[in-house]
């Protein structure tokens, strides 16, 4: 190849990489821009803190927002302690043997299981077998199972980043293994654990398939008052408004508003996680 030809192929090659990146960024901005642009007009305190009225063609999304917050809290209460404990076991106690290998493989595989399968499992386990019925607690636990591998993986990474010398220092001072974990390892892993948990929960908050048959319902006038009540959720509300409603065109603005609130919620959680991670890595450098 002549030098001129080489230069031309290099130019075309690099430009095609730039083109790929531009296409992907354009899609992302199109999604964000469209939802912000068409949703922001509907947004008001009234929209956020009022119940849907007139067959959901007017009013707000309060029960759906409150339902999503509640189900996500249940998810957190279940998945964070179990996930963190599981990660502590894996990183601090487990020996490298076949059983541990199987355990790690099962975590990786669970992370790849489609969310609708968690929905099926949730119906059979929580709704039917444990007789929790179609309820916010069934949905929260189903989402919790789905989030678990995510929390374990990120917690383990945070624990692995704590230098070995810290553990050895504590042990040399006479601390027991558990005391070392509790007062030396965990405190310095907390930012990493928090970041991972927030990201895991933000995924759970946006999921629809696992809650579809385990407790979500399309219309309620109030947020759930007990753990056994059915609930409304933002993602499911958006699904109903955009595909199942009898006057789809008429409720489109409300659908945009719902999509925007959901998106803001998710981005907010991601930004918080991002800030914690940034601050934490800065401290490490010091």
């Amino acid at each position: 190849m002549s030098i001129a030809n080489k230069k031309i192929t290099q130019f075309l090659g690099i430009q095609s990489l730039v083109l790929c990146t531009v296409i992907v960024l354009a899609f992302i901005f199109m999604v964000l821009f469209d939802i912000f642009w068409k949703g922001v007009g509907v947004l008001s305190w009234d929209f956020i803190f009022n119940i849907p009225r007139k067959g959901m063609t007017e009013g707000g999304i309060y029960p759906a927002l409150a339902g999503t917050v509640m189900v996500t809290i249940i998810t957190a209460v279940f998945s964070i302690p179990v996930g963190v404990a599981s990660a502590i076991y894996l990183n601090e106690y487990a020996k490298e043997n076949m059983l541990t290998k199987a355990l790690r493989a099962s975590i990786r595989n669970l992370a790849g299981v489609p969310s609708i399968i968690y929905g099926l499992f949730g119906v059979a386990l929580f709704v039917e077998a444990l007789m929790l019925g179609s309820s916010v607690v069934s949905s929260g636990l189903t989402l919790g199972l789905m989030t678990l591998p995510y929390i374990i993986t990120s917690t383990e990474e945070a624990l692995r980043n704590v230098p070995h010398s810290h553990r050895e220092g504590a042990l040399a001072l006479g601390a027991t293994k558990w005391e070392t974990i509790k007062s030396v390892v965990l405190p310095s892993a907390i930012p990493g654990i928090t970041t991972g948990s927030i990201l895991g929960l933000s995924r759970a908050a946006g999921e629809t398939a696992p809650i579809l048959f385990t407790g979500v319902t399309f219309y309620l006038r109030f947020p759930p008052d007990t753990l056994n009540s059915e609930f409304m959720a933002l993602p499911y509300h958006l699904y109903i408004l955009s595909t199942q409603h009898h006057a789809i065109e008429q409720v489109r603005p409300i659908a945009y508003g719902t999509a925007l609130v959901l998106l803001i919620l998710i981005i907010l959680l991601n930004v918080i996680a991002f800030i914690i991670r940034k601050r934490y890595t800065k401290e490490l450098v010091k």
Partner: protein
Amino acid sequence: MRGILTLLGYFTIVILVGILYLLLSNTLKAFVNIPFSSFFNFHWNPSAHGEASYGILQLLWSSVLVTVVAMVIAIPLGIGVAVFLSEVAPEKLRSIIKPIVEILAGVPSVTIGFIGIVLIGPFIAETFGLSNGFNALNGAVLLAFMSLPTIVSVSEDALRSVPKSFREASYALGANKWLTILKVILPAAGSGIIAACILGFGRAIGETMTVLMVTGNATAMPDSLFDPVRTLTATIAIELGEVPFDTPHYYALFVLGLLLFIISLLINFLSEWVASKFRYKI
């Protein structure tokens, strides 16, 4: 304390085995009433008034069709972005673009489905002169963008783990940047990139809400990408809510679930096998 931690540590195995047990036991219940062979035809109509039919092949074909087309779009785009981020973009630009691509991973699937309804669908309908945009192509386009973050981030990790000395050696031999990317870096990161694409495929074939919202969900064999399709995931989502408990139809949905579960396990093993087996074989 150690005992409690160990117990919770093994909880995930219990879940995985539990899911498998549940899918298997309900699948066996389906086989009690429905002969095994009747799953191997093209008609899925379990709620028919006369003879119910349980053929899964058309559903499986729809899932594969939508996913493969999504990969045709996502793989070149994803690898392009990953190479751009790892080899071309200055560190500052990379630190801006990477979080933006990660936002895409966080956008809920219903939101992507909604975009398919309000933007992609009408665009496809207008471009190709169709009456509506609820078809396989719409689903494929959306799934492509949903699997992109996986493909980009896993490929980029593979690209960045190629030692710097490989690049230096290539430059020393007189290759320019593009030739180095093409002949040295891509082959060296090849196994990781293939693993990334397999994971992206898995992400796409298991996606439910997006395809449910935009592919039209007709249970007829599609002739082209402009026909509506109904995937495995969408079928479970549509029918599980309506089907009475403890009927052959109810258990038949678990057969679909088991099939999806097996596909997701296979994909996981395959991607790990590829990533570990072919590392740095140049």
